[in-house]
């Protein structure tokens, strides 16, 4: 797969030398240096928060480095804005596309390089040039279509064309496959190879090992803001890269005994979810969750996992199907999240800050979110502040939350402490089933272990846990049974014993029945 390009590797297209950047107390980049050779696909890999995005934002002029320099084609360049980056021949395809939804493809591409104060001439020239570019690299797009009407894969092509049209020789691609279907990923790789054959240089930023192995020539690994390794892709293995990324033995070991699954607590039957545009997000999904087990849901982000959690927790109504829990059908009875909580269905949401807390409220006010009606939090028609504060203090002690100040604003706590508070809140009401999304995202190492232990303890206490995580390690470490999602459906189920990274990977890529 790692086709060698003969001319690759001679000269450097892009070089970072000693890039250093701090955001307040966070040291996001520590003397980052690496070389991207001309005409190659270079991988930049690392965990979330390893400093990849910061480095790329510096290269693209979004942030300014505190120290260090950037060289393009061997010459130092000053990049203070995205305009400087464009002028230096650097183009960027952002993870969240920078497109204007109700503009045509053509208008989107020429935005910023209109070629004169009047549009007519520029549009005409762009049309011709883009037709040529499309032929050269297999990047045909309907130029007069409205952006919002196009599928994501085509939108991404527009992003690439935008960069090429601006004369980019170096393309930075930030997590480009996160939103693509497996088929689209294949096409995307095809485009990358053609671009490389055409002499372009690509820097692929990702946290997915499989992509690095499949497409890159050389790879730089980042860890905790610094470069941990730089190797030829052909000479390395996924295991080696993974070790370099996390800096310790790969598989996260969680101490736990084998599961002893009990009765079925929750059953989902033929649930279908559509978004506001009528697009199916979750199709015909069914599964059971038993007492005393952790069911992990693996999959590329955006393949229906979020919708699964939302529909179970009651934040979203399904188009059809049943959810049986506690002797009733949650869908038919139209129970809202609050009612579901009362019946023992708690939820730690994927996006803590956006969904799970009110950042401007105190910790103690956040600890009654969703439970504000509970008798012990109220006295008559009034909230009982004293008992709320006492309860908060108790949970802070149990979960080792620091600082232990119930009146402190939620936003003043670190990510790990916020997450502990959310988990404390959701676990404390003694739920039968706990839905957990990305429990350790943006959480420091120490807190991760603590949170994992808590989740296992819950399982051992006979609760059912549904764990959605983008981290395969986390799934493999915690889950007793693994569901794999792709394209909005469950494409496979594996027991922990039979599950391997390869099997899950195949299923995630949409190869049905690979695990069986």
């Amino acid at each position, binding site marked *: 797969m790692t086709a060698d390009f003969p001319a690759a590797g001679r000269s450097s297209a892009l070089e970072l030398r000693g890039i250093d950047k701090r955001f307040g107390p966070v040291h996001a980049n520590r003397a980052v240096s690496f070389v991207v050779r001309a005409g190659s696909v270079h991988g930049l890999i690392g965990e979330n928060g390893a400093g990849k995005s910061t480095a790329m934002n510096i290269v693209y002029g979004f942030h300014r480095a505190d120290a260090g320099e950037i060289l393009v084609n061997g010459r130092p360049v000053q990049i203070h804005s995205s305009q400087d980056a464009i002028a230096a021949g650097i183009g960027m395809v952002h993870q969240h596309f920078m497109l204007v939804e109700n503009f045509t493809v053509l208008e989107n591409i020429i935005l910023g390089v209109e070629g004169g104060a009047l549009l007519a001439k520029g549009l005409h020239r762009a049309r011709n040039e883009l037709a040529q570019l499309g032929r050269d690299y297999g990047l045909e797009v309907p130029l007069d279509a409205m952006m919002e009407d196009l599928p994501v894969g085509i939108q991404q092509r527009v992003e690439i064309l935008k960069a090429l049209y601006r004369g980019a020789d170096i393309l930075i691609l930030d997590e480009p496959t996160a939103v693509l279907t497996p088929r689209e990923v294949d096409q995307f790789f095809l485009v990358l190879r053609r671009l490389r054959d055409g002499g372009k240089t690509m820097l692929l930023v990702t946290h997915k090992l499989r992509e690095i192995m499949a497409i890159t020539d050389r790879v730089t690994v980042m860890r905790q803001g610094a470069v941990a390794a730089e190797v030829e892709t052909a000479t390395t293995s996924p295991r080696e890269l993974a070790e370099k990324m996390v800096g310790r033995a790969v598989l996260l070991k969680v101490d736990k005994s084998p599961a002893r699954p009990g009765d079925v607590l929750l059953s989902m039957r033929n649930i279908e979810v559509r978004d506001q545009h009528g697009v199916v997000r979750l199709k015909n999904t069914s599964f059971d969750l038993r007492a005393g087990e952790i069911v992990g849901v693996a999959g590329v982000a955006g393949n229906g996992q979020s919708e699964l959690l939302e529909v179970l927790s009651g934040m979203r109504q399904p188009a059809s199907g049943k959810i049986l829990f506690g002797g009733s059908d949650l869908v038919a009875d139209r129970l*809202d*999240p609050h009612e579901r909580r009362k019946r023992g269905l708690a939820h730690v949401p994927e996006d803590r800050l956006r969904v799970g807390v009110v950042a401007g409220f105190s910790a103690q006010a956040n600890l009654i979110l969703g439970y504000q009606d509970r008798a012990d939090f109220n006295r008559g028609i*009034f909230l009982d502040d004293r008992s709320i504060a006492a309860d908060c203090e108790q949970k802070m002690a149990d979960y080792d939350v620091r600082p232990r100040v119930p009146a402190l604003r939620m936003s*003043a706590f670190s990510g790990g402490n916020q997450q502990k508070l959310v988990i404390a809140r959701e676990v404390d009401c003694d739920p039968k089933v706990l839905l957990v999304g990305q429990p350790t995202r943006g959480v420091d190492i120490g807190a991760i272990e603590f949170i994992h232990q808590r989740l296992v303890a819950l399982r051992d206490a006979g609760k059912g846990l549904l764990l959605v995580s983008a981290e395969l390690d986390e799934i493999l470490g915690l889950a007793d049974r693994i569901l794999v999602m792709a394209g909005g459906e469950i494409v496979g189920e594996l027991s922990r014993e039979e599950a391997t990274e390869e099997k899950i990977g195949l299923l995630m890529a949409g190869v049905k029945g690979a695990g069986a």
Partner: protein
Amino acid sequence: MNTTSKELPRWADLLLLPLLGLIAALLISAGVIALLGESPWQAMKLLVDGAFGSQESIGYSLFYATNFIFTGLAVAVAFHAGLFNIGAEGQAYIGGLGAGLVCLWFGNWPFWAILPLAILAAAGFGAAWAFLPGWLQAKRGSHVVITTIMFNFIASSLMTYLLVNVLINPGQQSPETREFAATSWMPLANEMLAKIGINFAPTPWNLAFVFAVIASVLVWLFLWRTRWGYALRVAGQNPTAALYAGISPSGMTMLAMVLSGALAGGLGLNELMGSQHRILIDFPGGAGFVGIAVALMGRNHPVGIFLSAVLFGALYQGGSQLTFDLPHINRDMVVVIQGLVILFCGALENMFRRPLTALLGRRAERGSVES
């Protein structure tokens, strides 16, 4: 990420910022006054004297303040639900109609029977007028700012129509109703004080002031001491979190607007039952907009609203005093100050917040970690 956790200490947020905003507004106003060839110092002295210099002026200041407490609370309650209610003016107008109708229709009843009816009608009419924009926002996605503005104009047309064609006192030129029966008048403060042996100059300051204070306490209790108020504030600060907690954001939108309109309606108790004793064209006189300034300066907290309402009441009373002594300045100057307060306490707040946070923020952060 962590740079955002640097926050202004609470006392600075609640006291220093509004105070700086007020000072900036007053300084610029002083500049304008100087530009007009008058002495800002003398104007300020006249203003303070006109507002608090005698029992009459204090009474008038508190009379105006009563209106502003009601409209300020109205703006604040909506604000806590994440809504900007620019329609307090129209809601007060329609709410006043409710109170007025009760006074006109049940004028021969005793006061203790009229009062609860009038309060209900004022609140109910105001609430109904605010409910529509609230419902349109919640269910149809129409921006509440625009609809409340439109509803101000619709209210104005409706009231003009009613006063010109329906409610007008027959045989009278100006579009206003007949005078309410004296039994429906709000007892004046000086009358009530006289009963307990305190002599106070006769002013329009009346019992409605007490209701405004009670409303402030109720708003505080509701927003910060009950689960429903909690739910409303959650919906205002983070609608997604509200959804997650099983709180209906659209339900809270409607609830907040209804409460907001009901509070705005309270203005009718003070202005109509307390002073005018008839319904007349444009009796809110811009108090709904003053409410925006009052709420912003009062940090949307009842205590702050009470204080800034008194401040604005004083400005209004003191402002009319200016007219007599300074030929070049009149009450319009107070409107300028009002606009500047909204500007500096609201829109340009970051102008003070950023440097202040840089100055005081770090210390606060360290303090919070230590504690």
